[in-house]
């Protein structure tokens, strides 16, 4: 009780304007409506399998302005966009959209969890995810089915994509 009355704790100013930044992003507009009731966490599929991820706490961190902490963590990337929280949220907060906006900010600033980054690197390099798994057997199967066995067009497509959109901004 004593702690609550100290000046430091009654000064409820976010440590940064991160919430405002998210709010300005497409899909992030409703973040300020959150009343921290916990409906989202209790509804969350991911939260039910891991203690690490708590959507309410993540929203709280954003509202408190913990910009670096949020952007550098894996948490915004763990939402699997099932939108059960949005279905039940009584304040109509669009959590999946907010986390999408946060991921966009994080990616822009180079905070991408290795697992996601590796996946993208593989796609950009090979043109698709599963080149390692592509074997003679699959080639034969494709041949039998009358499908094109040459998948190098994937690479051409990705090269075009890279040239048009990526411009080497954050891919090393």
């Amino acid at each position, binding site marked *: 009780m004593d702690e609550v009355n100290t000046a430091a704790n009654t000064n409820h100013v976010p440590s940064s304007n991160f919430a405002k930044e998210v709010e300005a992003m497409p899909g992030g507009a409703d973040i300020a*409506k959150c009343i921290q*009731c*916990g*409906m989202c*966490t*209790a*509804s969350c599929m991911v939260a039910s399998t891991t203690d690490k991820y708590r959507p309410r706490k993540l929203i709280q961190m954003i509202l408190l302005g913990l910009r670096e902490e949020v952007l550098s963590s894996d948490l915004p990337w763990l939402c699997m966009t099932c939108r059960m929280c949005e279905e*039940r949220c*009584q304040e*109509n907060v669009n959590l999946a959209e907010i986390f999408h906006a946060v991921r966009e900010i994080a990616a822009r600033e180079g905070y991408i969890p290795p697992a996601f980054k590796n996946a993208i690197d593989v796609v950009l390099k090979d043109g698709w995810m599963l080149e390692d798994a592509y074997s003679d057997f699959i080639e034969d199967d494709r041949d039998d089915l009358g499908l094109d066995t040459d998948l190098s067009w994937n690479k051409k497509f990705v090269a075009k994509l890279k040239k048009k959109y990526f411009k080497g901004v954050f891919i090393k």
Partner: protein
Amino acid sequence: MVTTKQEAKPEAASGEGPKSTSALVVGGGVAGMQAALDIANQGFKVHLLEKSSSIGGRMAMIDKTFPTLDCSACILTPRLSEVSRNSDIKTHTYAEVKSIARDGTNFKVKIHKRARYVDEDKCSGCADCVPVCPVEVPNEFDQNMGFRKAIYIPFPQATPNVYTVDKRGEPACRATCPAEVNAQGFIAMMRHGRFDEALEIVRRTIPFAGVLGRVCISFCEAECERGMLDHSLSIRNLHRFLADYEIAHGTAKPVTPNITKEERVAVVGGGPAGISCAYQLAMMGYPVTIFESKPKLGGLLRYSIPEYRLPRNILDGEIKRVIDMGVKVRANTHVKSVKGLLEKGFKAVFVGTGASQSNKIGVPHEDAEGVFYAIDFLERASTGQEIALGARVAVIGGGDAAVDSARVAKRLGAKDVTLIYRRSHVEIPAIPGEVEDAKEEGIKFMLLTNPIEILTATNKVAGVRCVKMRLGEPDYSGRRRPVPIPNSEFTMAIDSMIIAIGQSADPNGVQNECDCTEWATVNADQITLVTNIPGVFAGGDVVTGPLTVVKAVGHGRQAAESIDLYIRGVDMAEGRHKHLHRVQSYEVDKSHKESEDRAAMPKQSVDSRTHNFSEVELGFSEATATAEAERCLECAVCCECKQCVAACTRDAIDHSMRDEVLELEVGAIILATGYKLFDVSVYPQFGYGKYENVIHAMEYERLINAAGPTGGHLIRLGDGKIPKSIGFIQCVGARDVQKGVPYCSRVCCMYGVKNAVMAKEHHPESSVSVYYADIRAFGKGFEEFYEMAKTRFGVKFMRGRVAEVMENRETGNLTVRVEDTETGELHDIEHDLIVISPGIQPPEGLEDLAVELNMGLSDEGYVDIANKVITPVDTFIPGVFVCGCADGPKDIPDSVSAGSAAAMRATIILARNQKEAQEDG
């Protein structure tokens, strides 16, 4: 409708009459009562309008009030009696606003007062009527958890303490029956095993429980509401069971004549119409004589319907009952003149000579040997006369007479019986069950075929030439017209032919004295059945043309009623049309009924029945009949069995009461229409309505209330167990933007805390948890109450909205999934009982009232306040005030203070009006 109403109330029009000094309070809850009392105690007249059968509103349902834990009824009941004792308050219960029109500063209000079928001045509330009532329906006062009878008071302290008959109208079965047999009524008695009373209800309208129980076409079953759910009730077979039961158990009471009147009535024709008419007249006490040309009474029932459908002992028994009532019979008597009967001293004559002339088919060689007409054929078969029938028989026609003839021919030994009908099996007019039975017995149905010529050899039938038909456009009767297919003629060898293509009235019959149509049927009024000759009435087939037995029986009853009125010199037409609303499909709650099969009628096997005339349908057993009666949905709630009328010692119950419209002129209106609870079943994740042990707060109030369905025992309704652990889920249907209720309902936090405390009071050892988003303990003593719940009562509070409730199917226990937002931990917590605390919403019907008043509502649907700060009870309409929850959620003290405030605002107007009147006067 809305637009015409609005035209009728121009704001600027100035009233002609004096300004009214009385007020109307709409809604008899605690706020409305307070407003009414405060106005009345200042000496003005008040009309207090209440939709339900008692004032008291929601507060009467609630167990305890917060934060003081006072007994709600103990506070409310003195107020109820204060209202009822105040001579300046006129309470209109069971009434609603029908229309409101502005007249200067006055309001002209029409009130629709529903009939409660109990005289408010006579009823003493003794409850003698309750045990005899056979109808039980869910008790809405107990939130549909317990049951009440069709005659009820909502709660013991109901004000006025007058019983109400819940009669929604006329059930489809009774409304459809041409004889108006009270099917719902006798079925209600049957489900309680009271077969004698059930039969008595059938016999109020028809003398033929057993006969019509066998031969009726049962229009009622086609309209039976149960048919919308699974299959219609077997209504016909149920009243047949009643008659059979009486014979089997010898429970019939001896019939004694009770002829009290002088005026003799003659009935011409002893068929179903005539017997029915005589029966009704004899019940009224008239001496009746039936004139019948045949040796015995019964008409087509005796001489046409085969014995395997209607055993003659049943018919004889029921006719004997009528004769035993003091009806005289003159058999073998041809009446030569109806007027002659009047001259002989009969005060009235009923003509029911029927339509028993077989129609001709109009094809060549119809007079050949071996051609029979159905009526004649069936009569000869019924009376045991010799019939020279060949081996191959063709029956022409598709009505009941045709099917009967075919089945009789089979029983008389014909090897090959073919029924030729010109339309398809859809249009065939015979009773479907009879058609099925005939098919089972090996009758061939040659549909879409028409005979065009009878082929003869030495003037004896040798064959029939037919043409195939197809169905064309519908004709005037709505059935598709059969059209011959060119070049489809074919010939069929037969030995006999029975023509059953309809009957008509005897063109030379005695009815021709009256004004008749070209088909020799009498032109009689459809309702009163009067003919052009005063004192002569006609009914049955002689009026309608060949139709059904039940219609004829109905006509007999209608005519008897007219004859009674005629003899007494009363207007016959007045008040005869049906005034009861026919209960519509959507008004019958079928949501909790499971689909069940209709009881099957046991039948004699085909082998044993096709060679003799023993009865085919064997009748229901007692168990089958009772089970079938249980399927009745009791559409109209009150079944008019009138057991209550007999039980009431003060003659207070009157089933002929009608709704009334009252007109009031008032100077001010106070809206105290209350609220409705949010329907929590729209949250599928909480399982309300799906899981037995998830209930809402008002249901909980009734459970813990000593006058509730469990007598105040807090148990699970599913299995009767005492819940060891109870969870309360707050903020459901309130502060939910997605569900259209963004506002806080103000009362849920505190009633939730109160309910949690009451759970501890009932079962101190149980564990009680409240799941909340915020606790808004904003009023006087509320925070202390909340604190007391935590510390003194040990109620656990967890901050976190519940995401979902899961049921354990074996134990019925419920697991809530919630995040404790104070620790960030996710919990799955098991409870025995879950109580959802729903938010509150504007009441149903407030929108209609707003349209009447030409008043806008807020976005949420509450009454809009002109100025929330200075005039918190004034609406935008001058002279209209609001209190209670009509303008937004309020707790009881706030509702009551708003009631007083609204009363004060209203009396300012009334006092000004009074002063003006005194100055003028």
